[in-house]
C-alpha cells in the first residue's frame, strides 16, 4: 500500500533571492508514521513543509506523495492530500469567523452545503473547539487559534498532516492539550519543532536536519538521547530525559 507515503529523493531548493535552503534531502515516511523534524534555526525545516503540499516546487530532485509525483500539474491534487498547519495562526485564520474559516477548504472542494456543515462540525469537535464555532478569530487565545487551524486543516480530510512549530508560544496547558490531540490522530504526521519533549511524546521517529541536509534519521528515543548529535545542532536533551 503506497497510499500515504511521503518520499523525498535528493531534493534541492533555492529561493529566488539565492538562499540555498535544501541541499539534497532524502527520506521516506510510511503510512501512519509520526515523524518529528528537528534542527537549528534556518536549517530549512519550514521550506520542507512548504514543499509537502506543493506550495514550493523543488529546484532539483523528486517528491512523491502517495502515488503522485509533485509537479505543476499535481500540486493542487497533492494539496488536498497533505494538510499543512503553519507557524502563525493569524496568517492561517483569514476569515472573520471560525465557522467561515473552517468551511473555507470544504467549500473549495465543491461539496454540498450539508456536507460542508457536517464536515466543519465534525472537524471542530475533533479538534475540541466546537464551542468556538461562531466566534471571530481575534477574540481567541493563541491555544484556541491553534486548535482552530488544526480543525481547518482536518476538515479537508487530508491523508497526511504536516505542522510547522505547532506548540510555539503556547502556555503549558494548551501545549498539553495539543499533544493529547495530536496523539489521538491516526493520520501520518510530520511535525517540525524545537520542543523536543513534544516530539518525544508524539513521534516515534525523528529526522535531524542540518544545513539543508538530513543529518540523522531514526527512532525518536535514540536520536533525542544522543547528546553529541543534539549539541552539534543547537538542540538540548528533552527536559523529561534530563531529570534522569
Amino acid at each position, binding site marked *: 500500500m503506497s497510499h500515504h507515503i511521503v518520499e523525498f529523493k535528493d531534493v534541492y531548493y533555492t529561493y529566488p533571492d539565492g538562499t540555498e535552503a535544501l541541499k539534497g534531502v532524502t527520506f521516506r515516511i510510511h503510512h501512519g508514521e509520526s515523524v518529528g523534524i528537528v534542527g537549528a534555526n534556518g536549517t530549512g525545516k519550514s521550506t520542507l513543509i*512548504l514543499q509537502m*503540499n506543493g*506550495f514550493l516546487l523543488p529546484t532539483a530532485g523528486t517528491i512523491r506523495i502517495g502515488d503522485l509525483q509533485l509537479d505543476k500539474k499535481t500540486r*493542487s491534487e497533492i*494539496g*488536498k492530500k497533505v*494538510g*499543512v498547519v*503553519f507557524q*502563525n495562526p*493569524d*496568517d*492561517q*485564520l*483569514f*476569515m*472573520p*469567523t471560525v*465557522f*467561515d474559516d473552517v*468551511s*473555507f*477548504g470544504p*467549500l*473549495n*472542494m465543491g461539496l454540498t*452545503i450539508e456536507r*460542508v*456543515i457536517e464536515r466543519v462540525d465534525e472537524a471542530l469537535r475533533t479538534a475540541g473547539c466546537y464551542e468556538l464555532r461562531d*466566534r*471571530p*478569530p*481575534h*477574540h481567541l487565545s493563541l491555544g484556541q487559534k491553534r486548535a482552530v487551524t488544526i480543525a*481547518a*486543516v482536518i476538515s*479537508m480530510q487530508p491523508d497526511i498532516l504536516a505542522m510547522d512549530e505547532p506548540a510555539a508560544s503556547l502556555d503549558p496547558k494548551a501545549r498539553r492539550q495539543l499533544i493529547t490531540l495530536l496523539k489521538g490522530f491516526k493520520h501520518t504526521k510530520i511535525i517540525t519543532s524545537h520542543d523536543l519533549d513534544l516530539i518525544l511524546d508524539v513521534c516515534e521517529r525523528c529526522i535531524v536536519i542540518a544545513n539543508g541536509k538530513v543529518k540523522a534519521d531514526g527512532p525518536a528515543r535514540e536520536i533525542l538521547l544522543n547528546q553529541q548529535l543534539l549539541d552539534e545542532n543547537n538542540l538540548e536533551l528533552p527536559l523529561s530525559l534530563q531529570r534522569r
Partner: protein
Amino acid sequence: MLAFDKEYFNIGFLDTLSYKHSFVHSLDPRIKLLTTLAFILCVVSFPKYEVFQIIPFFFFPVFILSAGNIPLKFILKKLLVVSPFVLFVGVFNPVFDTEAIYSLNGFVISKGWVSLLSIMIRFILTVSAAFLLIATTSFMGLCLALERMKVPKVFVVQLLFLYRYLFVLAGETMRLIRAVNMRAFDRKNLSIKLFVSITGTLFMKTIERSERIYQAMCSRGFDGEIRLLKRYKINFTDTVFALATITVFIILRKYDITNMLGRALG
C-alpha cells in the same frame, strides 16, 4: 494610556458588543441595515429649520439601545469625539442667518440658532444610528447582508479581509508604538520621520504577511473565488420589525406629533 491604545480598545469594545445576544442582535442584518438607512433618510429629509418634529425620532436609537443592551455611556462618549467638523460648519449658521423665527416671552431666537440646533440633533441621531447598527450586528453579518444585496463580491471580500486583519495589524502597530514611546520618553506624538519609518516597517511586515496568507489560502484549495455560506433568513419577526419601524418613520415624518402633544397640553 496612549491615544492609539485607546482607539484600539474602543474598536475592540464596539466589536465585542456586536457579539452579544439580544432581540436586536438576532434580527437579520439586512433588515437592520435597511431600517437604519430609512431612519437616516427620514431624519435628514426634514427642512433645515425643523427641530421639534425630529425629536420623536429618538425613539429608534433608544429602542435599539435598550433592547440591544448597549451601554448609553459608550455611545455618548463616541458622539463627543466625532462632532468637531459638524460643529465647525454649523456654528456659522447663527452668524449668517440672523432673522428672527421664534419669540418666547421676549426672547428672540434667530433662524440660525434653530438650524444649528437642527443640525446637531440630526448629527446625534444619524451617528448614533450608525454606531448602534454596528454595535448590534456582527461585521460578518453586515458583509453577508451586503453580498445578498448584490454589492460587488470583490468589495465584500475586501471588507472581510480588512476586518479580519484590522485587529491583527492594529495590535502590531500598538506594540510598535509602545516600543517607540518607551524610548522616546514624554514626547506625545511621533515626528514625521519616525512615523514614516514605523509605517514603512509595518508596511513591509504587512506585505510579507499577505504572502503567508496567500500560501495558507492556496493550501486549502483557493482558486480565486471566495465562497461564503448563506446563513441568515428573513423570518416573521424580521418582517414585522421592518414594517413596524418603517411605518412609524413615515407617520413621524408626516405628522408633527410633538406639536400635537404640545398643543394638547398647552
